[in-house]
């Protein structure tokens, strides 16, 4: 690092250590956000960052945890730099720790540039509106919650649901029709178990995706505070691949719940005024600084598409983490325990799911002209069917009319035939839409009010 010798200063004046934080006194000229190296009496080197800078005092958060730090012999070196990460094409095919050190036994990658891990906001006037359809081969996504390049579409899941399988399947199958372009996957694990990490790496290895992937792993037994840094490294790498190298990058971030918990820990240690459920009041802004790094830029080839995964505590979608996420991301895919119990894979419930960028990613020239109407009608019909199920539970099946019974059958078939598909099944968009028409055909035609009559003529009536 250039200028390090000039700018860096070393102190032995740790005054207080509390949780993930450390207060150093008697310092001068410490910058807000400056990177700190902490050398414990055992010679272990830890890294940290300044959270609060006074004239003669600095509050430092230590990424590796504060174990082993004392108030007597510990040396603290202020580097004069903000956190940077070396980016380059050599990051591909490699596995890194949550701090960005290689852990696959390979050498330290040679980097082409050093970028601030916090990135900088994309100028809204420089953004290109995302509208390129990504075919994931999964009907409930492609047909009803279409993903487009440059979108951030999280998976809201719960403990024990197959979100990892789904994310891996999407990473495997995602493609833009009729194009052969440079593609990369950035995987960022925050507080996930070794097994989960191994699942993804194995999947990437088997499909040959690993050589096009950069993997960042902060495991469950790694320091929690490190999780604050890990996704930022991953996103910095992703931005480099996308906007310097012109690649289309899919970033999988899992599990955001662990990230938010680490943030809460720091906030509590700083005795900040807590917001809802003890999470800091700035949780929204903090999450936004990561999610908003997805997108496209005018005149640049690449794109960053994000797929964050979060497990909703108690399957509660109003919990602050999914709630604030939903307000930032461009939709969400909601996993449903009931569908999972019925053996439906992927158990995505389309009703609370949404893709905000769908409207511009589909239609003639992108998918097919009937896509929007088809999807709207499927939604409405499935919602009606689900309502009727609730009604049947109260009043019994006899009270239903013929129309109602058709809706009930529709809802069942929709779950079993449309949503349900194999873990390796890669359906084309045409297959998905035709399947939708086949199911809609079981309903009375007069009920299909969301469909333009010309599409009824063209797609519903034949056969």
């Amino acid at each position, binding site marked *: 690092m250039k200028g390090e010798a000039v700018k860096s200063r070393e102190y032995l004046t740790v005054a207080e250590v509390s949780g993930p934080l450390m207060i150093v006194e008697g310092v001068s000229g410490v910058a807000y956000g400056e990177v700190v190296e902490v050398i414990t009496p055992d010679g272990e080197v830890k890294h940290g960052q300044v959270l609060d800078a006074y004239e003669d005092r600095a509050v430092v958060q230590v990424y590796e945890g504060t174990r082993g730090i004392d108030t007597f012999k510990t040396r603290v070196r202020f580097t004069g730099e903000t956190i940077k990460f070396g980016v380059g094409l050599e990051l591909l095919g490699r596995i890194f720790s949550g701090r960005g050190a290689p852990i696959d036994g390979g050498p330290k990658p040679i980097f082409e540039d050093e970028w601030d891990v916090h990135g900088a906001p994309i100028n809204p006037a420089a953004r290109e509106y*995302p509208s390129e359809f990504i075919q994931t081969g999964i009907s409930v996504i492609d047909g009803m919650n279409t993903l487009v390049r440059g979108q951030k579409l999280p998976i809201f899941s719960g403990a024990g649901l197959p979100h990892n399988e789904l994310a891996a399947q999407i990473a495997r199958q995602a493609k833009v029709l009729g194009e052969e372009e440079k593609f990369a996957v950035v995987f960022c694990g925050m507080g996930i178990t070794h097994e989960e990490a191994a699942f993804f790496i194995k999947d990437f290895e088997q499909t040959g995706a690993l050589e096009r992937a950069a993997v960042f792993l902060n495991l469950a037994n790694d320091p929690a505070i490190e999780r604050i840094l890990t996704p930022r490294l991953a996103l910095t790498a992703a931005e480099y691949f996308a906007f310097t190298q012109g690649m289309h990058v899919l970033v999988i971030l899992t599990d955001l719940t662990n990230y938010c918990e680490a943030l809460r820990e720091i906030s509590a240690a700083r005795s900040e005024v807590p*917001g809802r459920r003890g999470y800091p*009041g700035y949780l929204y*802004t903090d999450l936004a600084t990561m999610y908003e790094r997805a997108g496209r830029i005018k005149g640049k080839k690449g794109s960053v598409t994000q797929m964050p995964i979060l497990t909703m505590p108690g399957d509660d979608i109003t919990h602050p983490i999914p709630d604030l996420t939903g307000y930032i991301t461009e939709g969400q895919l909601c996993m449903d325990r009931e569908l999972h119990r019925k053996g439906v894979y992927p158990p995505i419930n389309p009703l*609370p799911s949404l893709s905000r960028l769908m409207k511009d990613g589909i239609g003639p020239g992108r998918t097919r002209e009937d896509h929007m109407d088809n999807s709207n009608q499927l939604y409405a019909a499935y919602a009606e069917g689900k309502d009727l199920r609730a009604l049947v539970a109260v009043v019994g099946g006899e009270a239903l009319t013929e129309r109602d019974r058709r809706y009930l059958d529709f809802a069942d078939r929709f779950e079993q035939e449309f949503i349900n598909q194999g873990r390796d099944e890669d359906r084309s968009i045409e297959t998905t839409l035709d399947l939708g028409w086949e199911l809609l055909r079981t309903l009375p035609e007069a009920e299909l009010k969301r469909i333009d009559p010309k599409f009824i003529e063209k797609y519903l009536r034949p056969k």
Partner: protein
Amino acid sequence: MGKIVRITGPVVIADKMKGSEMYELVRVGEEGLMGEIIGLTEDRATIQVYEETSGVKPGEKVEGTGKPLSVELGPGLIGAIYDGTQRPLTVIRAKIGDMIKRGVSAHALPRDKKWEFVPKVKKGADVVEGDILGTVKESKLVEHRILVPPGINGKVLEVADGAHKVEDAIATIETADGKRDIPMMQIWPVRRARPFKEKFDPNEPLLTGQRVADTFFPIAKGGTVAIPGGFGSGKTVFLQQVAKWADADIVTYVGAGERGNEMCDVLVHFPQLKDPRTGESLMERTTLIANTSNMPVAAREAGVYTGITIAEYFRDMGYDVALMADSTSRWAEAMREISGRLEEMPGEEGFPAYLASRLAEFYERAGRVRTLGSDERFGSVTVLGAVSPPGGDLSEPVCQNTLRIVKVFWALDTGLADRRHFPAIHWLTSYSLYVDNVREWWKQKLGEDWKSLRDEAIAMLQKEAELEEIVKLVGPDALPEPERAVLEAARMLREDFLQQFAFHEVDTYCPVEKQLGMLRLVLDFYRNSVEAAKRGIPVAEIKKLPIKDTIASMKRLPSEKFAKEQGKMEKQLMEQFEALLKTRKAPVEEGKREG
């Protein structure tokens, strides 16, 4: 010159700041980051910084500028996109590239562009504050009126003509305090409301082309609206629909702490859309403030004020302005974050105790006014604020404090959104207190008592809700036929009238004449089918009437075509019901099965 003693996120504390004023704009650190003083204790100032503070050190300088945070007002505002502190984002991009870095500044109004100034006063005329000195054709839609700034009265000594830059003096006025050169550009502090003569009750509807808004829960020019709803309930889409189709002269759209791609959506799509009244591009009347969620939080707080100041400026010219703020919750959260950093005593849910008064102050800047100036000019600012309640729970502080102030409440319902009933504005929980204000307008404009039709429709939906309760308990078959006819008609009202496709080329905008015609058809159907059911016609028969499909397809009919066919449809409806009644002579018990 002050000296920084502490930095924590967007808040900086500096010493030796004696002589500075509250809300003074300051330059922080060696890079001269933009900040604003939000607290003073003896010679120590608390500053909120509008840019990222990483790398700033204690000991660096703080310079006062002697003036509060202000905006530049003048030709060049229309079609522009600014950040929260009015930095022009397209200019910034040309200057430093695709990412916003800090320490960049650029003039909000282009300095070298020349505007064709047409004087409206003569040399020697006496003018007062707010008088029109002349006009500039700023865009195809907007005639920018150059006004005598507030506080200046006197005789015109000199008035220019022809092409001028915004800083050029276009008039010289002899005031009691001496000669004053008046440039086209005015500077105004954002936190101070611009003056006017008198405020009036709003009495003219702001038409949006959205049926649920115009017919059911109207807003008035100069009114205030809150649109709360959980994520995915369609707040932004609906707000954008209003921004697109509202019959305002000027639209100011403030994206406070929302998605970057959404702002991009506006930038891409507005120029392509045509104003239904003038046929010109919608961007020709729009100013955008974009402070996305990842841009500095303090600038988000400022953006809302920047937007409303620009809106007031156009109001003063005599225009009807609509301001959309998406989302006021993010603005409130910015206040909370700054307040937390200041270690202020928190109020509800960590929000500062002054949340309610800040919200009230902001919404109070809306209104229909008689502007300054010697001519009788009227202008209005209508404020539409989206609220993003956590977990969709409307009992949270931002919602509650907003509802105490605003007059129209468009309640977005997640349940409706899940069913893809859009706009997901719930007909039973929403309200408008402008119904009586705008009633007269409807009567004069369309010669019809809109309110009685509207009330009848809402009563029908209320009745439906009651019947649904019964259905939930005992099943639909337990209802007598006339009540099932109510359910059928209410479904028609919801599906064929209230639902509106924002992305359908025709249905995206529905003129009021068509709205009223559609409502009348649905109500005709309702009255006739209840009557028929009472006379023994089973609902199953009524459902087979071809007029039902005709009504279902009317939203896709272009308005001119609808106007032509409306009479025919009404006639068909009557004929079909008459024919149906003829088939039955006596009441028949049919279509009823054992439950």
